[in-house]
């Protein structure tokens, strides 16, 4: 027993010493530039969405929803199916355009920016239905996630100038770091179309991490997983939050997980925000209970 568990334990000990170092350096570099004395879990508001409204025809998907994400926290968004959770995430990441309301990332209005610009600024997300580049291998998917941070232009890439070569090796080093952190070593070279569901979710998380996020938006990262895979995923999320100090917005249906790891919870129902607060309050909130169990 001890022989089996030892490498795993060792890995856990070592993670903080070598895993994700390159990525962490880069993120810290950016953070110090923007916010030199950021402490974990202070109350500074990083992302602010005000009065978001969105309707598809007559269907009001979101109705004046306000969201604030603070530095270093894990914010969970829950709600019954069709409550507009994914919609809210889509609006924040610029995939849908809100009809009313504005989104600010650190005082910068990003409501009308194209979504690739928003991703470059550091709003990275994963998807409910896995949206990987199915023709690329795992490592290429993660390097493809580094796209905005690769500096050489395409002509340098075509001719393969030495600086392009060095840059490629550097990006590969960061990608290998992420692979190491997410324990994807065995499948590194496999085409993602052939992987199992849980692994693919993990690759997606890796790709989002590769973008050097300021805020990580996770859309149902644990949907359809078994208990072990869920446990792994929760561990990764907590590690990312603690080690890289990235605030995480999480949509999840598994109440156990949400109540355990979230610092704050927002409850949506039919496009309205019906409650907001720490897990203990949400558990007791009568509106939430009626939304989940049906109102009398």
């Amino acid at each position, binding site marked *: 027993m001890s022989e089996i568990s030892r490498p795993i334990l060792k890995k856990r000990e070592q993670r903080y010493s070598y895993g994700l170092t390159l990525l962490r350096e880069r993120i810290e570099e950016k953070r110090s530039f923007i916010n030199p004395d950021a402490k974990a879990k202070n109350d500074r508001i990083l992302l602010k969405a005000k009065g978001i409204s969105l309707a*598809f025809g007559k269907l009001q998907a979101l109705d004046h929803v306000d969201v604030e994400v603070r530095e270093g926290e894990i914010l969970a968004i829950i709600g019954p199916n069709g409550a507009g959770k*994914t919609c809210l995430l*889509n609006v924040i990441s610029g*995939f849908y355009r809100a009809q009313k309301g504005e989104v600010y990332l650190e005082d910068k209005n990003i409501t009308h920016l194209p979504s690739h610009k928003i991703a470059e600024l550091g709003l990275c997300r994963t*998807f*409910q*239905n896995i*949206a990987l580049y199915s023709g690329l291998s795992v490592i290429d998917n993660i390097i493809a996630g580094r796209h905005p941070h690769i500096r050489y232009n395409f002509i340098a890439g075509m001719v393969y100038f030495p600086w392009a070569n060095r840059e490629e090796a550097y990006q590969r080093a960061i990608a290998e770091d992420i692979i190491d952190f997410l324990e994807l070593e065995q499948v590194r070279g496999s085409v993602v179309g052939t992987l199992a569901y849980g692994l693919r979710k993990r690759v997606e998380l890796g790709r989002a991490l590769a973008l050097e996020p300021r805020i990580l938006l996770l*859309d149902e990262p644990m949907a359809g997983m078994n208990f072990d895979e869920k446990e792994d995923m929760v561990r990764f999320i907590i590690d990312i939050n603690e080690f890289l100090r990235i605030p995480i917005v999480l949509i999840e249906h598994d109440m156990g997980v949400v109540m355990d790891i979230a610092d704050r919870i927002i409850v949506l129902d039919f496009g309205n925000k019906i409650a907001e607060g720490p897990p203990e309050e949400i558990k007791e909130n009568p509106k939430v209970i009626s939304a989940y169990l049906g109102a009398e």
Partner: protein
Amino acid sequence: MEELIKSIVLGICSGGIYALLAVSYVVIYKSTRVFPFSQAAVLIIGAYLMWYSLIVWHLPIWLGFLITCMGGAILGGIVERAFMRPLVGQPILAPIVVTLCLMLLLRGIGIIIGKGDIQGFGESFLPMGAWQIGFFHLPKIQVYGMALCSLLIAGLMFFYEKTNIGLGMRVVHEDHVVAQNLGINVKRIFQYSWAISCMVAVVAGMLLGNIQGVGLALDANGLIAIAAVLFGGLESFMGAIIAGLAIGILQMLTITYIAPLLPGETTMMIPFVFLLLILFIKPYGLFGLVRIERL
């Protein structure tokens, strides 16, 4: 002014055939989500079949018409079974390449059966001559052709709305997998769609052959009809009919106003310029559905 009215009336008459062709594209696209470029070459086959029946085999017109229609339906069924069915579920590229290759394959067959010459029907199988109405005369071929096209389109609409197979086609249009789960034989519906569409296309082919002469150049009309399909919005019969008429009018206006200014085959080029304009301005066409992308 006289010229304008004349070109519009003539345009509507010749646009009937484009509408028919556009409908034949839409039938397949709606149910199978494959765009059948090969319909352009089915025109050639249809024209030659009619020519063989009337000129070589000396059959009566109604029998020739029947044989051509049956031939078209059988051709469509065979094409679906042999070439399209193995590709069900493949990415969008494969069916496009196959239909394009089918276009050339049918064209090759057309060359063999037609010996590479342009043939005429001698005397048209539709009444010749023209009516003199006011200041312009209306060729009877065009009018009868238009009437036949409208009849066919009306029949097709009736089939689509009222029969069981038509209902199946409408369901398949919504979602292939759901339709399969509801117990509809999706493959059979695909086959019917191809058969019906090819039947419509051969009729258009024989009408065009009657006007332009039976030859390989007929497939240009099929390609022009693509502009109509796109203008109408790919999935809408109403759009296809309106856009077909519009393309006919556009072509006649081109002959009247633009052809004197530019050299060469302007009637061939202008519809494609129009197609590009549609793609730039309103890519989903008049009645096309804009699908909301989901994440």
